[in-house]
Every structure is written in C-alpha cells, then in structure tokens.
C-alpha cells in the first residue's frame, strides 16, 4: 500500500513533458516505468496514459533485446543496488 500512495496523484508524466518519441538507448529515462526487478510498471501505478504506456513498453522491450536492461532479476543479482548500471 505504501507503494500505492507513492503513485497516488495520477497524471501522465510523459504527457506533461510532451514526450513524443522515446529512445531505447537513453536507459536513464526508462527508470520511471521500471520496477526494482526491472518489470514494466503497470499503468494503474504510474498513471501513464495509454499512448505513452504503449510507447514505453516497446522501448523497454527494445532495450532488453539490446542488453541495456535485464529481462529478469534473480535473487543473486537483486542484492546489488538496483539501477546502478543505468543512470
């Protein structure tokens, strides 16, 4: 529930910033929509609009294919600080 409160004020941050295109190589920008285990955050928590959620999901999937973002985080790798490699 604490996590829920963090995202209580719901509005699309990408609409606010007028993001029109996301670059999959700019990994730091993807942090907002990734969980600690590098899952794609759901729209109900981030408040992203449908259009930008579609954009971010394709971009994250591209970044995963390019080995910029991991697909999964196991118990071994989760010990190290999350997001240390992307900034």
């Amino acid at each position, binding site marked *: 529930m604490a996590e829920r409160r963090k995202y209580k004020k719901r*509005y*699309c941050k990408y*609409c*606010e*910033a*007028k*993001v*029109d*295109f996301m*670059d*999959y*190589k700019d990994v730091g920008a993807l942090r907002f929509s990734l969980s600690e285990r590098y899952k794609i955050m759901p729209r109900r928590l981030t408040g992203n*609009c*449908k*259009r930008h959620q579609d954009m971010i999901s394709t971009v994250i999937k*591209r970044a*995963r*294919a*390019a*080995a*910029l*973002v*991991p*697909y999964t985080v196991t118990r071994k790798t989760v010990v190290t600080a999350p997001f240390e*490699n992307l900034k």
Partner: protein
Amino acid sequence: MRNYENLVIVKPTLTAEEIQASVKAIEEIITSNGGEIATTDTMGMRKLAYPIEKNERGYFHVIYYSIAPSAITEIERRFRLNEELLRFVTIKYDTNREIIAFNQLVQKAQKKAAAPAKEEVAKTEAPKAEEAPATETPKAEEAPATETPAVEAEAPAAE
C-alpha cells in the same frame, strides 16, 4: 529509401584494432547493399545487462542509415553469419514522428562526434525546448487524453 538504426554489440574478447576492423566491416555491409550511413555513434565498452554467450561486457556501436526496405533482410542475414557480433537490434523509423526523432538523434550523434564546444550549443537549445511545454502543463494534467493531438502537432518542439 527508409531510415533505419542498427545497434550492434561486438565481442569484447577482440583487441581494439580488431573491434574497429569489425565495425568497419559492418558499415561496409550496409554501404555495399546501397545504404547511406547518416552517422555513427560509439557507445564504447559497456557492461551487458545479462550475459550473452558467456560474455559480461560488449562493445556497443550504433549506425544510423537510410536504405531500401528490401535490403534489410540481406543485412540481417549477414549480421547473423558474423561471429564477432553478440547481438544486433534493427529499428525502423517510418512514421513522420519517428523520422523527426531520427533526424534529432542523428544531429545529437553528430554533435557528440564533433568537438565538445558544439555540445554547449546543444545544451543551450535544450532548456528552450523544455520551457515551452512547461507553460501548458495545467491543461495536460486535467485532460491528458484530449491533449494528445496537440502533442503531435508540436513534435519539433518536444525533446
């Protein structure tokens, strides 16, 4: 002709000269198939998010180019045969919005390749672009869904 972007990851076990040679060979594949390389961007040796073929690191290189769509299959076939490549990602820039983004990415990469003095010019331009959307934020908060057509219209201003 259509705009494409290729990210290639070269094996880290090669020496620096071998990496440069293989990057040259990759660009040669694109040009020999009738592609025009707009610019290239070297991301350098990076840690991979997950091991590929037991390699923890890789040399990242990005190539922006335009080529006839039919030639992409041949390029990808050649990339698959290349054992020096760990991974390649091909991105298509097709719609108007994507083409604008492509041109911006090309400019960014060119500036990065050029002298650092030019990077300062890019920095001064960036805040201007951010100021314009900031004034219209209250509207976007209230109705993000209805705001989307305006976002598309102002494509050059964004980013």
